[in-house]
């Protein structure tokens, strides 16, 4: 499969301020996660890819061309920024129709596409005419995704699109992205919710301090890819009882209890053993459980790993 994005020694500086520093990478078709802590250069990368800014040095090709001031390339892209800012005084339909027309659709086609995409992102029709600024954060995120789909782009770039979505909303959002990818649209997505990225993405691009420390797959997976997280957090009615149960089952390498939040964090001797019998073990424990989440995913480990000199 040929790469849709190719960057070679790509750098971008804002005066003395570092955005991206001499990065070389390529992105293949499919869903690719862009991961890194705040200030890593993710948004700079997205702005370069969408043609809002120029590279300071190096080369960048998106579908074979530099996107800066290049409408033919921009026609194949769509961007959902992280920022909360949306135009005041406009409802989702009006906004999407206007943006659809800026993408080259006629007024009629833009209106049809606006309705179709709002439907696709599962925004209830009663919200289609409300001012964008009056919508909840989750609804705005859906509208922001809808504006990406208007002109049926080949590459959708999403900057923290899951912010503000509840777990069901994130699941819906993920399903929309999977359907898009299934239909041949490539997706570049950044998120701080790493579990979601892990569930969605086939490839990762790891950024830190404007550089790529190493390919995420190399950083995260020395050898075979671990299937389960090494540690898990449980918010439950009685963390002590649950800890004792797991100790008795011989599953615990170490644990930590936070009584204030009634949270138990466990590091497993063998994560496979726990996750293979996940349901049975939790039922057998007899402890009411409110939340279960992994505490150190492979991606988190990659982000926390010391930089390569």
């Amino acid at each position, binding site marked *: 499969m040929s790469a849709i994005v190719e960057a070679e020694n790509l750098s971008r500086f*804002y005066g003395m*301020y*570092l*955005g991206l520093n001499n990065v070389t990478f390529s992105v293949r078709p499919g869903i690719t996660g862009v991961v890194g802590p*705040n*200030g*890593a*250069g*993710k*948004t*700079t990368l997205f*702005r370069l890819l*969408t*043609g*809002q*800014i*120029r590279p300071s040095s190096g080369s960048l090709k998106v579908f074979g061309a530099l996107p800066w*001031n290049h*409408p*033919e390339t*921009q*026609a194949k*892209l*769509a*961007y959902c*920024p*992280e*920022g909360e*800012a*949306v*135009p*005041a*005084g*406009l409802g989702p339909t*009006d*906004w999407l*129709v*206007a*943006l*659809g*027309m*800026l*993408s*080259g*659709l*006629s*007024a009629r086609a*833009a209106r049809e596409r606006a309705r179709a995409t709002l439907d696709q992102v599962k925004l209830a029709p009663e919200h289609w005419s409300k001012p964008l600024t009056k919508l909840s954060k989750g609804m705005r995120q859906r509208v922001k995704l809808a*504006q990406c789909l208007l*002109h049926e782009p080949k590459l959708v770039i999403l900057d923290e699109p899951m912010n503000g979505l509840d777990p069901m909303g994130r699941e819906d959002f993920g399903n929309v992205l999977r359907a898009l990818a299934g239909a041949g649209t490539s997706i570049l997505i950044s998120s701080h919710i790493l579990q979601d990225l892990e569930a969605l993405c086939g490839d990762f691009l790891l950024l830190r301090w*404007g550089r790529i420390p190493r390919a995420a797959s190399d950083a995260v997976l020395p050898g075979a890819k671990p299937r389960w997280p090494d540690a898990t957090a449980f918010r439950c009615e009685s963390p002590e009882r649950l800890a004792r149960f797991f100790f008795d089952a011989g599953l615990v390498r170490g644990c930590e209890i936070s009584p204030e939040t009634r949270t138990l964090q466990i590091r497993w001797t063998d994560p496979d053993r726990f996750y293979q019998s996940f349901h049975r073990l939790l039922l057998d424990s007899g402890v009411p459980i409110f939340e279960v989440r992994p505490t150190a995913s492979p991606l988190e480990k990659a982000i926390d790993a010391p930089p390569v000199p």
Partner: protein
Amino acid sequence: MKPSLSSTWGGAWRLTYRRLWAPKHWLVIAGASALLALLCHATVREGRAVGGHGFFPWVTDTYVSLLLPIFAFIFGAGAMRDDLGAGVADYAFTRPVSRPAYLICKHLAHLACAQLDFLVPFAALLAVGASRHIPGLGAGAPLLFLAQALTIAAFSAFGFLCATLTSRYVVIGLVYAAAVEAGLGNIPTELNRISLTHQVRGMLAPLVSPAGAGAQGPLATTLQLLLWSAAMLAVAAIVFSRRELAGPPRDA
């Protein structure tokens, strides 16, 4: 799929008028117009069209030469700065739209809205004139309207250019106002012709003084101001097409 000029216009128009014409906006326009009418009513003498405390001199000096240019400039610059903010730039300029085409369509959409907006204070002033029984009001109204339309076009184009250049467009506006409009525009030499308000005042001279000394024909003034607007817009379009649309992001 590259947008045609008509779809670019459609998009720019929809993004502009929907945002501008909120109910709150009309309340502000109505309030400002009422204040302007009150000021005019308090200043202008009954039945007096020209000379001290005359209706036409007051409208020419206070409204057409001072308030209108200031507000047209600020509205024009504000509209452009709004479009450079993340709420629009991230969505509009990541699309295959040509930036110069967008800027021109945006300006035309903004101009249409501004011309309609300023009809309200214009009507308020005419109402004051009628209530004060100003002679020649009906005959002078078309020329006053033309002066208003041209002033809005010229100063909003200038506002667009300044806002495209810098976020500190007010500084450029103040320097220009002091150096050209208040400075050179008031020097009685040929040099004062570079002042836009001087040109408009020249066009309105037959209303202000019966002799109409130094009057400039409406056609010449219209051509000059439209040319100025087109030149400002062309420079703004060139600057805008080369401009990067985002400073250092929070998450660089």
